[in-house]
C-alpha cells in the first residue's frame, strides 16, 4: 500500500510558452498531478513567453479560464519556488517593485509568489531534481 512512497521524486518543471498556449495548461495539470501523486516540485521555472503568467495586469474574458490566476493560486497554496527568468521578464514588461524602480518604470506588475531571477536557477533546478520536465518548447 505504501510502495509508492519509495518512489517519491523531486521534479523541476519549466514552462516556455505563454498563457495562450495549451502548454501553460498542460504544465499546470502535470504539476498538480505530481503533487497529488505524493512527489515534490523543487522548482518551477518560467522562461520566454511564460513570463507573462507572472503579470498581475492581464484581464481574461469572463467566459474563459484565467490560467495566470490558477498558476498563482497553485504556487501560493503549495508554497512552491516559482522563478521567472528576469531577462525574459524585463524584455516583455513583467517587472516587480525592485525592477520597476531600478529601470524607472511607472508601474510594477508582478510580485508574490513570483521570484525574478536568472537562468542559472533553471540550470541549478535541473541538476538537483530527480526529473526535469519542460513544457512549451
Amino acid at each position, binding site marked *: 500500500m505504501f510502495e509508492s512512497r519509495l518512489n517519491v521524486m523531486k*521534479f523541476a518543471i519549466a514552462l516556455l510558452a505563454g498563457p495562450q498556449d495549451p*502548454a501553460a495548461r*498542460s504544465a499546470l*495539470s*502535470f504539476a*498538480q498531478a*505530481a503533487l497529488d501523486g505524493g512527489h515534490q516540485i523543487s522548482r518551477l521555472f518560467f522562461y520566454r513567453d511564460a513570463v507573462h503568467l507572472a503579470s498581475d495586469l492581464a484581464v481574461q474574458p469572463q467566459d474563459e479560464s484565467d490560467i495566470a490566476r490558477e498558476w498563482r493560486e497553485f504556487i501560493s497554496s503549495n508554497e512552491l519556488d516559482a522563478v521567472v527568468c528576469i531577462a525574459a521578464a524585463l524584455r516583455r514588461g513583467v517587472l516587480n517593485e525592485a525592477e520597476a524602480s531600478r529601470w524607472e518604470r511607472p508601474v510594477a506588475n508582478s510580485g508574490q509568489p513570483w521570484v525574478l531571477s536568472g537562468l542559472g536557477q533553471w540550470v541549478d533546478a535541473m541538476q538537483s531534481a*530527480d526529473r526535469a520536465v519542460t513544457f512549451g*518548447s
Partner: protein
Amino acid sequence: MLHVLRHAPQDSSRFASTLRSMGPEQGLLMIEDGVYSLLPDTSSNSALQLLPASVRLYVMEADVSARGLAIDDLPKRVKLIDYPTFVQLCTQYDKVLSW
C-alpha cells in the same frame, strides 16, 4: 528515456526529428498538437505503427478528445493516459525529453 512531442507533424519537423532520434527501448508520449500524429490515414500514423514493438507509445487522452479525434480510430498499440500516469511514466523512464 521518454520523448514528449507536442507539435503536429503537419506543422513542424519535430515529429520527424523525434522519430529519427529515438532508441529502441524508449517511450513516446504525444500531447497537445502532437496528438495529430495519430490522425487516421496519415504518413505520421503509419510511421508510428512501423516503430519497433519495443518502443512504447502513449497519448494524452484529454488532448485527443479535445481535438475531436476518435479514440476508436487510434492504433491498438497506443496507450491512452492521463496526467497522473504521465507523472508515473516520468518516474519510470530515466529522463524526459520534450520536443
